[in-house]
């Protein structure tokens, strides 16, 4: 995975670059919006991480430029300015996510993974989480390469949770997603599907954690998943 990092603060940039490289990404770092525009014209990236306060045009303008040029890569905005909080939160500029500086590396990695997963799902129809891969085009689920048989309702539940991870999924949302299958489905029925999924996924280190009073969340017990939870 190749990432573009646009950040003018050397301390912050080298820190992020080190952390991302460690996590297995290839990182191209530029210090200004102008450089970023040039590089984006020549090279292809899987995602961009932009600082808001940049010399030669700020990150928001750069985001607008990226969207205006039609680049589809996901954009994660970094900001030290809390005042922009609400504006960025609207994400009406075409950014996909934002974080307020200073931030913790594990959270940055988790957000990046979620962004990449979503953009990947939009283009390749394959959702992945840890050892789990779900090919929505061929309706195939593999765990560490091993094919897993899923019933149609189990498939819906897993797909819904995969799309949302690392966020938890509310039980009533799952219920709504399943009403296409059954007219009268009870919350207890969902528990049945979830426990069946658990039995199939847990051997590969993927847990469906119940959240009291809310719903479920997909969690990963392996190294990559740990980072999510650190």
């Amino acid at each position: 995975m190749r990432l573009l990092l646009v950040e003018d603060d050397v301390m912050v940039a080298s820190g992020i670059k080190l952390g991302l490289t460690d996590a297995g990404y290839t990182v191209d770092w530029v210090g200004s919006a102008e450089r970023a525009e040039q590089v984006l014209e020549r090279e292809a990236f899987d995602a961009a991480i932009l600082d808001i306060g940049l010399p030669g045009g700020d990150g928001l303008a750069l985001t607008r430029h990226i969207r205006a040029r039609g680049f589809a890569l996901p954009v994660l905005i970094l900001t030290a300015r809390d005042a922009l909080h609400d504006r960025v939160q609207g994400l009406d500029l075409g950014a996909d996510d934002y974080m307020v500086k200073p931030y913790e590396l594990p959270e940055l990695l988790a957000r990046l993974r979620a962004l990449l997963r979503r953009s990947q799902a939009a283009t390749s129809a394959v959702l992945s989480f840890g050892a789990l891969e779900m090919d929505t085009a061929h309706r195939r689920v593999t765990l560490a390469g091993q094919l897993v048989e899923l019933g149609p309702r189990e498939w819906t539940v897993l797909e819904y949770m995969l799309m949302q991870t690392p966020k938890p999924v509310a039980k009533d949302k799952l219920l709504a997603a399943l009403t296409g299958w059954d007219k009268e489905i009870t919350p207890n029925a969902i528990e049945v599907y979830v426990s069946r999924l658990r039995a199939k996924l847990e051997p590969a280190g993927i847990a469906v954690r119940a959240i009291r009073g809310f719903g479920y969340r997909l969690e990963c017990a392996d190294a990559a998943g740990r980072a999510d939870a650190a």
Partner: protein
Amino acid sequence: MPPAAPTPPEPGASRDMIGGLRRRLMVMLLATIALIGAVTVAFHYQAAGTAALQQDQRLLRLVPMLADSVLVPRDAPSVAGDLAREAPSLTLLMAPPIQEFLADREGHTAVGVFNAQGERLFGAEWLPVLLPTTDAPEFVSVVEGGVTHRVVAQRAATEAGELILMLADGSDARQHWLRNVLLRVLLPNLALFAVAAGVLGWGVTRALRPLTDLKQAVERRSPRDLSPIDERQTPAEVRPLVDALNRLFARVNEQSDTQRRFVADAAHQLRTPLAGLQAQVEAWAQAARSMGAGDLLSLRAEQVLRLRDATRNTTQLANQLLALSRADALRDDDATRETVDLADLCETVLAHFLDAASARRIDLGLEAAPARTEGHAWLLRELLINLVDNAIKYTPGGGAVTLRCGQGGAHASPWIEVEDDGPGIAPAERERVLQRFYRVPGTGGSGHGLGLAIADGIARVHRTQLQLDAGALGRGLRVRVAFDAVAH
């Protein structure tokens, strides 16, 4: 009467305010007086018309007297026709009222006697020839020698037969009265007006002096001097203003005191984690100084982790301080409030803490019923984050933390609640834990004593406060925030 006191030159912007007040008062008072004066003059002028009418009637009353005054000498033949022909043989013996009339206004009065053909038998040259055809009197005004004379002519039967008698009065009543009005009414009125303007100017300035003095007293103050203004030295009229000012001073005083204390505390608090960071980095820099540029410095893994913790700690403190200052800034701001879905808020915050909870093996749960309130969404989120963060931090592993929200009914008060089954807070400490930077003695962990203070600060922005109780079964801590019911 003293002249109008000139306004002393006053520096400052409020000069306009007081000057404006003074000007308005003066304009209103003087306009009233001028109006009264004008009405008086108008009445007097009106009276002049009446006076002219009276003059005509007086002249008319004198006509019979004049008729009585015409005598024919005994020795002359007393035939009317003869009289006309032998004109000078007429004798006038003026009746006393006529004498009086002539003597009273010497030079301005005249009498004339004409025969029926209009020949002058007696009288001044300038008298016009009037031949009234009936017995009714005829009035004209004649200018003679720069004076307007009122002239009456009437046919009257006399001893010498029917003659035309004429009386002229040069003391024109209208002029006379106009002069009267000018002298006796207009001039005194103008003088009175001038005097009144002076007195009023002086009086208004005097009356406004308490305001001017107050303004100067406030102006002279240094920005740091917020001591109350002495109420006893201010007149009763300005006292409400002084009271309001004093209340404002007190509030500002209190606020700036709190601010000063807060900044001092915050700086002190920031020094603690910064000191740890600096100590670590200084030690490495010391080691690095004796090494070459390309040499590698080896660090123990736990050192790096400690460093990371100290950094996160500092960041959290900075974030908390920011949250506090923003809550303070919004204390009296109702304009930016919006409807906040508390159940949504609880779900967001729950998701935010799932990792932290599972890292500490804490069962984080939600019991959310639909509830809405009016408020600042991001502040309420901050409030809940601080409560849950606190609960997770101080609940031992294996414990449970529950977020709740609800509303008794459509018009009932909405509330949010965070309950844990940790060590709880002793009733005696519950008041104090809401103070900034206060930490319960013997508490471990990396807190700054700000979490509950922030939550309480935000609650107060929303006109409510934290209620601290023991959790279910008397264990742990339950923090509840009940909001005002939203009017729909």
